[in-house]
């Protein structure tokens, strides 16, 4: 992710873009754990 953004948009955009991307993912993961609707069901794998 970082390398891709670095090549296309430069150092600063790569840093903030990556931070934003990971921030969004991490927020969604945490919300999935704590949200009432997100009661976990172990999938049938």
């Amino acid at each position: 992710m970082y390398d891709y953004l670095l090549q296309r948009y430069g150092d600063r955009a790569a840093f903030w873009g990556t931070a934003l991307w990971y921030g969004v993912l991490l927020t969604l993961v945490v919300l999935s754990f704590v949200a009432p609707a997100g009661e976990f069901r172990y999938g049938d794998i």
Partner: protein
Amino acid sequence: MSVLSLIWVMGLILVPLLYWVVPERFRSPLLVAITLAVLAFFSPVSAILLCCATIFAWIAYRFFAENGWAIAACASVQAVPLVYFKATQQFQGFGAPDLIIAIGLSYYALRAIHYTLEAYKGGLPQHGPIDVVNYMLFLPTLLAGPIHRFPQFHQDQQRRRWNSALFSEGLERLLYGYFKIAFIANVMINEWFIGHINDHMVEGSRSALYLTMIAKGLNGYFQFAGYSDVAIGFARLLGFRIMENFNWPLVRRNVQEFWSAWHISLTSWCREYVYVPVFSLTRARWLGIISAMMVLGLWHEFTARYLVWGIYNGAGIVAWHQWRRLAGERIDAAIVDNSLAVRIWTAISILLTMHFVFIGFTLVQNETLTGGLGFLSALLGLA
């Protein structure tokens, strides 16, 4: 025990921390001790079986590596607990005595067989018994694979040192893994998608059954790919680069490509240790493919539904080879200069492959083969 459990998440934080803090010579013993402690707590029978498998694997390598029959016997003995547990797990709760679940057996049994067979083939580097213990009792791959191979593991172990780039990659993979399991599979697919089907569609209608099939297929992929990401990420936090398990399987153009990209560590195991020997002995490619896919199916569970599922996928691969020989190559050659035609043909191929595979999954997503066939009949309007 699931990777979503609190104890596993705590382990992901504490184990790498401890691992890199202790002196180098204590790192592997620490990891082995944690693995044994975890197994002994959650599944004592599995801890005993794993220790036996490890000792037996070393004996096979040390004393019988030159003798093909002895190695075959050793590999068969390694398979006995796996076959026993797979054959009896279906009777749980149906009057048979409760069986103790052997956590991780499906994976470490195949690792032990791989190690034993490679001992005979000469595919193992020089190593000692402690290396086998470290390989067999490797915590990150204990729960859900991948079925990584000894030579790569041994190489990583020799070169192991703190690598911040690898550690960072590990954290990234963990995040992707948990995102796939927790958000995409559990929330988006199970809560929203399946919830929408249940709340707004006529129960038992063909459109509801079709969307359920798609949802369950996607759920299976994201759950399992997520578990593999967590294992791979965990291993990278410890300085090991274990093999990948999925490579975009749902955008493959045919069933052969799909099975080269889905659960790669298992499919490559079946190719190396089932397909190749059967093909070498019989020179019948179709028999090798069907045999490998049957083993792949029965590895999940010793039941009729998984046997049929394996044969179904094997027959699909054989049919694809025939199709390619009879017409596929000519179609590819005819449209090669037309990029639009290539794109349309690729899209059709991907959709067909995905539906073929998802239809196969319905056979094993129900409790019995009859249930799976009933679902399929209803889906196709035959019931």
